[in-house]
């Protein structure tokens, strides 16, 4: 019995030194047959290759509403009005510029970028965690004419120095957020401020088509295999299906489907109401906001166009995928167990209206599960639930495909949930909690192994 236990332990630790499988030709096409070969500034903006006729037109319509600048109601442009009363941005594309990633933070201290928003929660003694009673569940800095915005967020940085065993070092900038010019009084000590930057839009429809069973297979909430990595599924209310579903979108896997995600983002970020979210995010204190409530700003057909748009956005083809240094980086990615959360590959299921999304071998590098990422990335010093089952310490593993084109498309290399990492190396160094072992292994690598690993990530 004892020897069996030792054997099991040995197996468990050996799981943390995965040998990369032989390079497969399909890895060059991370989005399957719909992978796009465009590597320009438009790299994230194409529909899955082969999308034609009616579906391509729906994509174009959705694209139009994604880019639309919403204006205050009433206006002469009735299909594109209903902005606010309070909001973060006037269009989807102002944060997801070219369908890419928001930058989040400024180079030097000052106002945060429009692409960074904050969820606000209050820790209470008896009710657990609730949306902020005065500011609502999300901080909206802007207001339409006659309605005050909620305030401004500015950032300061604290420098953290990381020393590698081989003498190299890196300096991370830890953001500290200050909420200023608050129009409804202070937020209060017990407020949880959870920053969220606009993520890249590539391949979302493919992620939606991964079968639930394939995601749940990697769940290990009690870390039974002892690799230090648990992985929990979030279960959330789907407004589209009106039932509890596995969450897979958003920084905390707080939305089950793209339609849920889009309707919620329209509502929270732009103040656009829909049949799924008929109410604006105004609290009882915000009387001007309440007075300017508008109904059904986007109808189901248009919302559906946008959802089809987000489902069809393609993934760019790999660059340098078979170069030796990239292959070495890939081996390291396996060896130091980055794949413990960043699951390389799936074959999508059959549960989609769009043929191009079904039965595709894809390489998103995510398990879509929640992981404790350590103190440095946590929303709050206390561990409390924040978004359905997700806690203030947990984040959903973000997909890595398309990562290396952020500079080309968005003109920056800011990563993580608020853009605090200024490049991929910093993004790795911020990892903690369940990723601590892998991070430490990264520190132990030689300089050239680290650089190969970054080359690999940039090839995705």
């Amino acid at each position, binding site marked *: 019995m004892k020897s069996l236990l030792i054997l099991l332990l040995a197996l468990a630790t050996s799981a943390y030194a995965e040998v990369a499988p032989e390079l497969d030709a399909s890895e060059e096409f991370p989005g399957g047959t719909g992978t796009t070969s465009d590597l320009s500034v438009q790299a994230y903006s194409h529909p899955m290759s*082969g999308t*034609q006729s009616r579906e391509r*037109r729906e994509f174009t319509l959705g694209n139009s509403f994604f880019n639309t*600048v919403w204006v205050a109601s009433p206006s002469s442009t009735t299909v594109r009005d209903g902005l606010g009363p309070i909001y973060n941005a006037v269009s989807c*594309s*102002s944060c997801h510029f070219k369908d890419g990633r928001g930058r989040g933070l400024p180079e030097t201290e000052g106002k945060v970028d429009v692409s960074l928003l904050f969820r606000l929660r209050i820790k209470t003694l008896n009710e657990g965690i609730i949306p902020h009673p005065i500011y609502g569940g999300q901080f909206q800095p802007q207001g339409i004419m006659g309605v005050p915005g909620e305030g401004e967020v500015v950032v300061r940085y604290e420098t953290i120095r990381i020393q590698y065993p081989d003498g190299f070092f890196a300096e991370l900038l830890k953001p500290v957020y200050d909420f200023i010019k608050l129009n409804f009084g202070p937020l209060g000590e017990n407020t949880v401020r959870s920053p969220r930057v606009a993520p890249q839009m590539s391949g979302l429809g493919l992620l939606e088509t991964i079968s639930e069973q394939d995601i749940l297979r990697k769940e290990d909430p009690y870390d039974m295999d002892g690799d230090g990595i648990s992985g929990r599924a979030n279960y959330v209310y789907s407004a589209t299906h009106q039932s509890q579903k596995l969450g897979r979108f958003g920084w905390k896997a707080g939305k089950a489907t793209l339609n849920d995600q889009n309707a919620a983002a329209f509502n929270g970020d732009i103040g656009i109401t829909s049949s799924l979210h008929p109410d604006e995010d105004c609290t009882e204190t915000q009387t001007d906001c309440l007075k300017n409530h508008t109904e059904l700003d986007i109808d189901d057909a248009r919302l559906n166009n946008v959802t089809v748009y987000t489902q069809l956005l393609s993934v760019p083809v790999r660059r340098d995928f078979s170069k030796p240094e990239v292959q070495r980086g890939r081996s390291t990615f396996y060896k130091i167990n980055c794949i413990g959360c960043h699951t390389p590959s799936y074959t999508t299921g059959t549960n989609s209206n769009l043929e191009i999304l079904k039965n595709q071998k894809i390489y998103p590098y995510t398990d879509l599960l929640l992981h404790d990422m350590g103190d440095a990335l946590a929303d709050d010093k206390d561990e409390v639930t924040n978004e359905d089952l997700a806690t203030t310490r947990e984040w959903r593993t973000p997909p890595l495909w398309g990562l290396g084109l952020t500079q*080309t498309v968005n003109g920056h290399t800011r990563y993580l949930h608020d853009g605090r990492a200024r490049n991929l190396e910093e993004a790795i160094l911020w990892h903690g909690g369940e990723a601590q072992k892998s991070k430490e292994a990264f520190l132990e690598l030689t300089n050239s192994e680290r650089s190969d690993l970054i080359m690999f990530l940039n090839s995705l």
Partner: protein
Amino acid sequence: MISSKNLVLSLSLVLSAPSFAQTTLKESIQSYSEHVHSSYAETLRRGVLLQKALYAFTETPSLMTQTVAKETWKYAREAYGQTEVFRFYNGPIDRDGGPEGLLNSWPLDEAYIDYVKGAPNAGIINNTSEFPEITKELLESLNELDGEKNISTGYHAIEFLLWGQDFYTDGPGQRSYTDYVDAPNAARRAVYLNTIADMLVDHLASLEEEWRVGEENFRKDFESQKDTVALKNLLSGVIFMAGDELSGERMYVAYDTQGQEDEHSCFSDMTHMDIQWNYWGIENVIKATNLLNQPEVKGSAIALRIEERMTSLHSLLATIPVPFDQAIANDEGRAIILNSVEELEALARDLATVSKMLKAPVDY
């Protein structure tokens, strides 16, 4: 004054008559560069005429100088519309830092620039406290700030400042020349118009330079790429223009939403011509490059089909009723528009097939 009759007669810019001789990829690519350069040179020439006409108008605002300015705008647009097919592959026009967004962004939020119905003090022009001085630098910094509809420069900004908002079912906007005489901020409006005219010329000149032969510029890089890479780029322009930008963004969105703000030249009611000019640009490239006479394609069923499609599209697009913002609302107009959309998509699919035959596959 340029009469609209002359406008129609000047037609498409393509210079080379279709030849039936077989051609090499290198020849096709060089012909393309030459065609792009001559198109931008013509666009620049007409842009300078527009700049002059706008200066003449703001110097001596009158119905006559305003009409000349409008006609010159159309003349300039005719040339530019045919260059839009040179987009969608990170060329000088729309690579990072390229001037496309400053030249031709639409739809634009009028109230971002000037007064609109119900908001007499709206826009940069009337915002004297925040923007005491109107300069190129200011307007460039404000373009697309906080959103793609916040457009401060380019052809459509000029169009709005000449025509004004279009509230009329039977014709374009009716801005009075007195907006430049005794209306509030008339002098600032004139400065604004002249400034964006100067910027337009600067941007067109930069495009012409990038495509000049024998210089250290984009053209040199373009022609020194592998033939199939250069070919894929030029075909991406043609295919995405036909199959997405023109058929989708510019026609189908307006068709489906029936929104007046969803047409390209909504102030001047020139959208019907924008559509044709964009399409001529596609035809020009196919003809100038002699692509259908590449050995792999020449005489094939698909080459013949593309030629037939081009002939029929050329006349079909000319039958879209005018103005476009009314055509999207009536049955006859809608049927023609939808038919055109489908034909353009089919053309894009056929051209994507050709791209595969030429080993320069464009994903479509």
